[in-house]
Each structure stands twice: as C-alpha cells, then as structure tokens.
C-alpha cells in the first residue's frame, strides 16, 4: 500500500491521497508534531491530545471503534472519569475487605464515623 512518492523536486500526482501515507501517519503529524503556537482562538491542546490518545490513530469513528471493541480508553483511569470513579470504588472496597479480614471490629468503626463525616461534608456545602 505504501509507496514513496517521487523524490525529485516536484510531485507529479495531485495529493489529497497524501502519497502512500495512511490517515494514522497524517494525524500523527498534524496533531502531534508541527510548531505549537497559541493562536487567538484558544483550544485547549489537552483536548486534542486526549483525542489523539483516545483514537490513537483510529481510522473509524468512535462509534465504529466501539463496535469493533476498541474502547480501552473507557477503562483507563487516565482518560475516563468514569473509569477513575470505578477504580476508586474498587480500591475502597478492597481496602475495606482487607481491613475486615484483619480486624472485623475496627473495620466496623471505620465504616461508621466515615459515613457521619460524609453527611456533614454535604451539609457544609
């Protein structure tokens, strides 16, 4: 599929095809490389970077990617707040279980004051 374009000065073919380059190659360069200048229109580069990571060089749409089972970013705490919450909940549960295994009474105590504090936090807001 990949064919280097003519090397000498002028490129004979009209581009748009991007030579032998695939979309991944193009996105990699125009999103990740090149001079970074903050223009008048400020887009948070993080948005773009997130996109680049998310789709790291997807050729399909996000929906298609999901259909294809490419949805790993949803479980990546770095990329998805839902995954982050899931991870925190899991860690909490695991810690509580471990504590319960070590000392059932202490685990009980930890549970109760914690619940109270959560309520008062909410009241404070």
């Amino acid at each position, binding site marked *: 599929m990949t064919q280097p374009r003519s090397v000498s000065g002028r490129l004979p073919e009209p581009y748009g095809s991007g030579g032998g380059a695939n979309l*991944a190659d193009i996105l990699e360069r125009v999103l990740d490389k090149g001079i970074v200048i903050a223009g008048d*229109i400020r887009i948070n580069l993080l948005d773009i970077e997130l996109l680049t990571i998310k789709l790291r060089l997807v050729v399909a749409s996000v929906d298609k990617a999901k259909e294809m089972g490419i949805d790993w970013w949803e479980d990546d705490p770095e990329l998805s707040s839902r995954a982050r919450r899931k991870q925190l909940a899991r860690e909490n549960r695991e810690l509580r279980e471990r504590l319960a295994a070590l000392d059932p009474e202490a685990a009980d105590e930890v549970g109760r004051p914690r619940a109270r504090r959560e309520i008062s936090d909410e009241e404070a807001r």
Partner: protein
Amino acid sequence: MTGLRYVYAVCRPFTAPLQRQLTGVAGAPPRQLVHHGLIAVFSEVPAEDFAEEPLRAHLEDLDWLTATARAHQGVVDALTVVTTPLPLRLGTVFHDDSGVRTMIEARERVFLRTLGRLEGRVEWGVKVYAEDSPDPGTPAEGEKSAHPASGRDYLRRRSTRARAHETRWQQAEEYAGRLHAALCAHAEDSRLHNPQNAALSGASGRNVLNAAYLVPRSRSEEFVELVDRTKDESGDDVPGMRVELTGPWAAYSFVEEERT
C-alpha cells in the same frame, strides 16, 4: 464577509506557483500574508466552524477531523514541493491579519533560525512491523487441538511458547535497532515516535519502529534506495519483518528544537 485566519505554515517567500485549485481547510483556497520577509500561508475560514466553541466540538468529530487533517497536510505538502515550510499544528487560528502579523513578529527569530536549519530538507517516515507469524514453538496442527496430557506437559508447552515469543520480539527489536542505526548514518537527524497502535492504524503486525529521518532533498533518492535495499534483505535476515516508507513530508517532526 470576514472570517478567521487558519494558518498552515510559515515559510520564506517563494516564486514557484503553488499547485492550481489547491483547497485548504473548509474548502477555502490558501493565501499568503507577507510580513518581515516571512510568509504565513493561511485560509480564511468561517467563525461558525473555527471559533473556540465550534472548533472544540468539531475536533471530537472524527469525520471533520479527518477532512481537516487531510486538507491541512495537503496545503503543507503543496508548499513542500516549492519551498521549505514550517508546518504549524492543526487548528492554529487568528482573528485577523494583524493577529497573524503579531505572531510572526513575536517568533521571527526562531522561525528564521529553524528555516536555516531545515532549508532544503524533507522528512521520511520509516515504520517496521513484526508480522504475527506462527511461533516455532507452537505445536503442530494435530497436537494443538489435543489437550495436554498433564499439568506439567501444559506448563512445559506454555513456557516453550513464551520463550519463542520472547526470542521473536528480541529479534524484531534488534532488527529495528540495526535498521535505525543504518538509516541514521544517512540522515542528518532522526526522531523516534511512539509505535502506532496496530488495532487502530489498521496495519497488520506489531509496530516495533516508528521513526522520522531528516534528509536533504538532494540525498533523498539515496535514502529511499537504502530503505528499499534493506527491505529486500530483511526477508532473508529476519523473517516476518515489514518495512514501510512514507514521504517526503515537510519536516513536521523536526520543527521544534531538540526535544529530548
């Protein structure tokens, strides 16, 4: 109607005509703005698509992003034919001409220095893939379906396979390392990029090398021949390797001064 200014690249003034009927992002023709002996190549684009909010929304739309990325690269590519452009990252937008001029003034010295460094050079992309071929340690067809006779048998088979797998990666990486060294010797500079995710780029095999090489245009033919030659030899040397060459690109990977 006045639109925003979407800037593709900055370069020195050039005399050769750009490809006719070149269209840039949003289907707009690229234009030139001369300032302080430099040229900004830009398109006038509608605010309803390129102001902050709509632009951010568009960037999450892969079809829009794809079309815009191709158009951006298309203009940069056309410039590469006639001069040495310094490509800007996708989505660099100013309110008006004076915004573009201010940007040029603020960065004039860096632009000139970078242009001096990159003049007459292009970028070649080289990727190496290790094809997923059956490991030597994989049991033959008949054997494969049969259940291992015992737990120990199973473990032994598994470790044989794991070892073969490991050897293979080692070979692949050594091969990529040798190729990279050989190409570096024929390039002025190089950058190693993150491997492309195979599931996403659509390429088969695992991407073990994703590199960019800065090569003078005049020595590009040699460089391409070298890659071709290596490609042919690699078949006998380490089976299952695939080398892909793309380019010539504008020196996208080299516009920023030494990053690492």
